[in-house]
């Protein structure tokens, strides 16, 4: 399978990349790790006339900590996140999520920015990004802006990024003290995408959940916050009954889609199962 013809650009700066986007508009696509875009191009489902490769843009890759926030360059690969000592120390759930994406070769190439900007409804990162309260930094012709995770995923393969913007950075707050987090996923056996995935971040003090943040992916057209679950567990204990009761709300507000992987009924059920498992694991991880 061969992609249709296109022109290939390797901008050396974000500014150059933005200029190319501005010049070619809808005819241009950004190429990050390429593991969603190139397969679509091979099947000719996507036929951009201009491909703007971000790999030569310095500064877009790498992970650092700035005052309690992990600053992850958009071109940082899943493998880099998975194995990063600072991520593993400050936000281990994010490393765990990265380690569950695709397969080793995909993780070597795929990037956090590419995954988030593509917004595949069954991608793993979005659930965690929402649960962790991350922020996306986008650069456009008018400069930089920050988009909260809750506002980022707009719909099927659609984000808050404007056509002329580039996602450059993901800012993930380090886990606070007395907080545990976990991501639990029911992978599709072939694609390894999430049939459902639930990320839970629970702060627990004195046996009670102070703050709960739960993101879900896979079941609907986009990743969303499971507000019902959060409300139901906040202020409660982390005993099995409380978690079970809260998990029952996991499908509320999710536009669950039936497909080959499951009916609405089954996927809704899985959301509840994995919400429970994620909260149990998060509670167990509280330090």
């Amino acid at each position: 399978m061969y992609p249709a013809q296109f022109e290939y650009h390797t901008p050396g700066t974000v500014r150059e990349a933005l200029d190319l986007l501005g010049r070619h508009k809808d005819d241009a696509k950004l190429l990050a790790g390429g593991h969603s875009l190139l397969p679509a191009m091979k099947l000719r489902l996507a036929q951009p006339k201009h491909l703007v490769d971000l790999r030569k843009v310095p500064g877009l890759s790498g992970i650092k900590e700035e005052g309690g926030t992990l600053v992850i360059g958009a071109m940082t690969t899943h493998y880099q996140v998975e194995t990063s000592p600072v991520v593993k120390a400050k936000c281990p759930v994010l490393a765990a999520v990265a380690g569950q994406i695709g397969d080793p070769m995909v993780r070597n190439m795929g990037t956090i920015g590419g995954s988030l900007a593509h917004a595949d409804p069954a991608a793993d990162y979005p659930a965690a990004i929402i649960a962790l309260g991350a922020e996306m930094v986008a650069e456009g012709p008018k400069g930089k802006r920050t988009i909260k995770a809750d506002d980022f995923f707009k719909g099927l393969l659609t984000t808050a990024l404007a056509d002329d913007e580039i996602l450059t950075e993901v800012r993930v707050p380090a886990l606070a003290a007395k907080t545990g987090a976990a991501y639990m996923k029911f992978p599709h056996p072939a694609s390894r995408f999430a049939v459902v995935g639930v990320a839970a971040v629970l702060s627990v003090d004195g046996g009670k959940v102070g703050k709960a943040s739960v993101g879900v992916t896979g079941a609907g057209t986009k990743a969303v916050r499971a507000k019902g679950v959060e409300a139901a567990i906040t202020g409660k204990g982390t005993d099995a009954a409380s978690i079970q009761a809260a998990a029952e709300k996991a499908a509320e507000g999710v536009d669950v889609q039936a497909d080959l992987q499951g009916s609405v009924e089954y996927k809704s059920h899985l959301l509840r199962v994995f919400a429970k498992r994620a909260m149990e694991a998060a509670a167990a991880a509280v330090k």
Partner: protein
Amino acid sequence: MATARLLGASIKRREDPRFITGKGNYTDDLKLPGLTHAVFVRSPHANAKIRRIDTSKAAKSPGVVAIFTGKDMTGVNSLPCGWLLPELKIPPHMPLATDAAHYVGDPVAIVIAESQSAASDAAELVAVDWDVQPSVTSTERAAAKGSVQIHEVAPDNVAFRWQIGDGAATDAAFKSAAVTVKKRIVNQRLVANPMEPRACVARYDDSTGEWTLWVTSQNPHVHRLLMTAFVLGIPEHKVRVIAPDVGGGFGSKIFLYNEETVCTWATKQIKRPIRWTSSRSEAFQTDAHGRDHVTDAEVALSKDGKFLGLRVKTTANLGAYLSTFAPAVPTYLYATLLNGVYEWPAIHAEVTGVFTNTTPVDAYRGAGRPEACYLLERMVDAAAAALKMDPADIRKKNFIPKFDNGYQTKVALQYDSGNYGAAFDKLLGMLDYKKFRADQAAARAKGRLMGIGFSTYIEACSIAPSKVVGSLGAQAGLWESGKVQVHPTGKVSVFTGSHSHGQGHETTMAQIVADSLGIPMDDIEIVHGDTGRVPFGMGTYGSRSASVGGTAIVMSLDKIKEKGKKIAAHLLEANPKDMEYVGGNFVVKGSPQKAIPFGQVALTAYVPHNYPEGVEPGLEETSFYDPANFCFPFGAHACVVEVDPDTGHVKILRYLAVDDVGNVINPMIVDGMVHGGIAQGVAQALWEEAVYDRDSGQLVSGSMMDYTLPKADMLPFYETDRTETPTPVNPLGVKGAGETGTIASTPAVVNAVVDALSGLGVDHFDAMPLTPERVWKTAQAAKSKK
């Protein structure tokens, strides 16, 4: 000096060095001067008439060499069907559809260009004016009233109605039965998915008027015969078909397909070589699919669990056209195996073959036998459940007792040799069955759902006695050729009509020869897959290479030795009748010092200065072996699973297999084939399914993202062992090992999942695969009934 026997030794494969270093020679690796590249334009619709095909815009696309549609292919015939049944309806199956396309992927034009990318670009510009018709893909609904009529020649979309067994005796058995059990058995459609996609390179040499076709084929001579004699009408001897290294087949590379036929035709038109390589997406849509049966099965039983009768009504989906051997698969390769390893007073089976707007269905690893085995082993467990018997006990109660030479079944076949109870006992020992039941009970008490499933299977392989299959409708003989050419230096070239696409023939067949001649394996080459070098042969499928192909080689080796004895006797001034062949030497019986080594005899045959009267020079023999019967491998498999009650996910905890494939040439290779076969059968039980959208007729599981092939982390190590009951059918005593795992494993897994959920009231699954959702929903439904 006694040397260790090479037969039965786990010798490392001689073909591996080229594969592990990237030096394999697959069809798509071939480069020829002036090579062009083909892309096919295919129907995006399940059923549509073609009003017009406009290639004018595509023809102007850069790099295009030629574009042909079916209308250009004048004088070309339909792809043939090689197995006929009484009153079989055979719709035309043109290499390029001209008037209508009947499944998604049906090819309608070929675009040939200087590069594959240029051909892909131009193919997008071919404009087909489609008149889209309603379609039917469902096996069950194909012949129903009001269904779409696909082919004029086949009213109600019925290709054939066929039956076997004794209907009256079976009806009587059911009337007298204490208990009857009836189940719906669905054997879903699968896609073979060898890792190497199909490919071909066709070259016409204008100076000689000869063609060479490199093609991913399991049987290059059959490919050539069908293509030249039936479709293209070109002289068979002018076409050389080469199947080089082939990356797996599993049946899907047996058949004559549209693509290589069109490329062979087109290369003469453009006088340049053409390469076509399937993408995986095309492979899903166009490689012949497997299975796809819907069956109602009934068992009649005595109160104490003896089988009295089996009644089977199957609808088999054949797809849009009859693929090469399609009619044989759901009839003679299926219903003749319904006797299993059990004693049955009466069996009757009816099969209806139907056309649908789907990819043609043909043999896929096991081909009919997995469908029979699944049905039978599922019904045996269902019968045990109905009588509240242990599934091991009901099997033991009904096994055919040990026999060495012949058992007549109720469905035509006569088994060769069998000892079914012994294999099962060995399995139960490996398993520690009693302990498992105790562990299972303890786990259940804690809410864990563990289960065990058995499959005591039999299959018919070593295909096949020509007279028998001819009387059943085969349009070909199913013998095999084996030529042994001894060179003057004593080195040996062996030419086999079998074809290796993973089976390791270059090793196992050399073991046969080295063992027989007592010469080093390094002195032996095995040549296969080339009609220009190998005598006409029938190829590899139906677990036939060792038993049929191997025997043809043994026959030639015997002839070589007989001739060698004459030559050696002459040199020793002895009587040929007093000669024997021992450890690489022709020896006068009782006088070991009177010996002539093999190499000296070989040289003498080519330099016959001192030579016996009336013996021809040279040392080369060809044999054609037509087996007297099928061979019948059997065995017992068990699967232990645990089901996640929350998700329905099935985890395989253990998989055990005791197989009896007769004598074993190379245990390492046999084990490897068993492993791979098990994985494919497990995958049918749990993961694989070709799904068509009911309304659009689109294949919605048409990629490796959607169609679940097993991965390493979904499977355990397999615990395998053997019993060895040599077959009397052939001199090697080998039965066949290529398909046993696939045939046996599917019911073992399903029975295990049913057993795991039996405490919840689950007694059956109406369909496979047992996806988490199906398992969970079935469990929920059973619980709510309770």
